[in-house]
């Protein structure tokens, strides 16, 4: 994955709470076995409304998305962050996120930033008023700021997630360095635990 440092650009104000991943990426597009090309299907049903925010040309290609609490709740489908990534979103700012969605975003280099409700409301109102207004999300300094103003807020992020994002780390490669630890753990596992292949073989015998 590409390293993430600073994200600068305008923001899409998606002013809704509890946006579930079924809305972000409806089920009919989960049949694809490809990893790319999900962008056009993002918010497929909501986009049928011409007034829906991602239909407004002033927000095309914006690298930041603003959303309300519990963004990305529901289904674990990583197709949802893949779609957002493919439409050019690099960071999402919201008061809270669904746990699995947030994990999925971290794995693909999509930066989820949690800010207090009042700050999100401020940024939301501003992005609605000034669609071209520039926001700077700095992973280096862990801040969100509004370009050309004094407005700046600090955000917390898991230091490990931050390190992985900034270095574009392949965390499978990282875990594989601990192969010995995994092997030692495996030796200590209870022999009573189920093995799918063993039983499958005896079931067939």
């Amino acid at each position: 994955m590409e390293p993430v440092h600073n994200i600068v650009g305008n923001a899409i104000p998606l002013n809704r709470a509890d946006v579930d991943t079924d809305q972000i990426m409806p089920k009919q597009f989960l049949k694809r076995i490809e990893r790319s090309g999900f962008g056009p299907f993002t918010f497929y049903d909501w986009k049928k409304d011409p007034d829906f925010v991602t239909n407004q040309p002033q927000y095309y290609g914006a690298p930041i998305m603003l959303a309300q609490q519990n963004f990305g709740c529901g289904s674990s489908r990583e197709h949802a962050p893949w779609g957002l990534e493919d439409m050019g979103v690099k960071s999402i700012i919201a008061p809270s996120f669904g746990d699995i969605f947030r994990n999925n975003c971290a794995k693909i280099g999509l930066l989820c930033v949690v800010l207090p409700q009042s700050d999100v409301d401020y940024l939301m109102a501003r992005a609605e008023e000034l669609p071209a207004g520039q926001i700077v999300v700095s992973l280096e300094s862990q801040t969100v700021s509004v370009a050309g103003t004094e407005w700046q807020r600090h955000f917390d992020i898991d230091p490990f997630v931050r390190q992985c994002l900034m270095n574009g780390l392949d965390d499978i490669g990282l875990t594989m360095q601990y192969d010995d630890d995994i092997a030692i753990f495996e030796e200590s596992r209870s022999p009573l635990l189920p093995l799918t292949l063993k039983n499958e073989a005896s079931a067939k015998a």
Partner: protein
Amino acid sequence: MSPQTLSEKIWEQHLVRQQTGQPDLLYIDMHLVHEVTSPQAFESLRIAGRTVRRPDLTFSTVDHNIPTIGRELPNPDPTSQKQIDTLRDNCNQFGIPFYDMFDLRQGIVHIIGPEQGMTQPGMVIVCGDSHTSTHGAFGALAFGIGTSEVEHVLATQSLMQARPKTMSVEVNGTLGVGVTAKDVILAIIRKIGVDGGIGHVIEYRGDVIRALSMEGRMTMCNMSIEAGARAGLIAPDQTTFDYVKGRPYAPQGEDWEKAVAYWKTLPTDESATFDKYVELDGNTIEPHVTWGTTPAQSVPVSGMVPDPDEAVSPSARETAARSLVYMGLTAGTKIQDITINRVFLGSCTNSRIEDLRAAAKVVQGKRVASTVSAMVVPGSGLIKQQAEREGLDQIFKDAGFEWRDAGCSMCLGMNPDILLPGERCASTSNRNFEGRQGAGGRTHLVSPEMAAAAAIAGHFVDIRDIVGK
């Protein structure tokens, strides 16, 4: 050792590695794989030249995207067929056991793990599906992951995970006649909200939980994600042991005794504490019906569609108003005056044999309303077979229900089983999100008994008026 909760014990016992500044590396005892969230993970493994570390701790089936009717015919959707074929090929290439479409044991992944006895207390279980929390009913730590993490588990049989917080949800008292595990979990989600469990593992405790069957416990743990929780679990007890015993993957003979002795060490220590506590009075829980587009938007069946103006906050009011527009409902409408066109009895929430028995009891000797089309989708081939042995299929068919093959079906509508725009469905599934069961479709979540009663009446009815007499 300091007192620990059930989930903390399981966590500790699966620590491969702990290092300051890094999430814990957790060992995975069982990885369940299905066709929808795995193809990109396998492809990525191939590209990186990696392999599956433990195919013997991995298990696979097709459920999300398969037809529930006419399986012997060519799949009408070539994209779906390709996804099914891809999983079969991947399982062959990497040596992963696979229950294919015509295997009697095929079914919804969260139904067949427990059914085969692969789900056991104390295990860590993952799957690329948010309803993996179902397996928590056995006192296992089970949670949903995304495709990148699926790949990580395939390659390393482990996962880097931040330690979750703990939440105790205690339900005491006794459930009334006609009140089910589904109603209890809907009441809990209504109370704590769809984001109330974020970052937490919920342990369900109390008299009501102890009295539930394994089927009921699975229904409850299944919907933990609908409260935003990372996982939900229930301490193993005699009910758990009785369910697991004798299943194909369960320990046998002397091993069984040893396993039970270990499982008995798992329940939360008496003096252990949780990060958060929630309590509900089971005596007062009524059958629930959702009226909106989040699982927290529910009311007792005796109630009415709430007025958004009475919502606790401006944002809740806006969300509620939006939900009512989507659902085509007016505030103040009595729940029992809402008419339906469709009934879906199925999903990993409520398609086990006990659910089918309970629903069959309600429909026996009756007819589905002429305005309703209703279907039953058993959770697995084995459940279907068992139901047919008991004659339940005949009861449903005589009443006018369709009797289908096992799969996820209309819970998420990836296959042709979908609602048409504007159709209103009483569904035993887990999500009433906009378009979940089909674009423009309107979903009301209920228990199997309530869904069956609604199918007969053509509108919601209070199941207590039927079974209480």
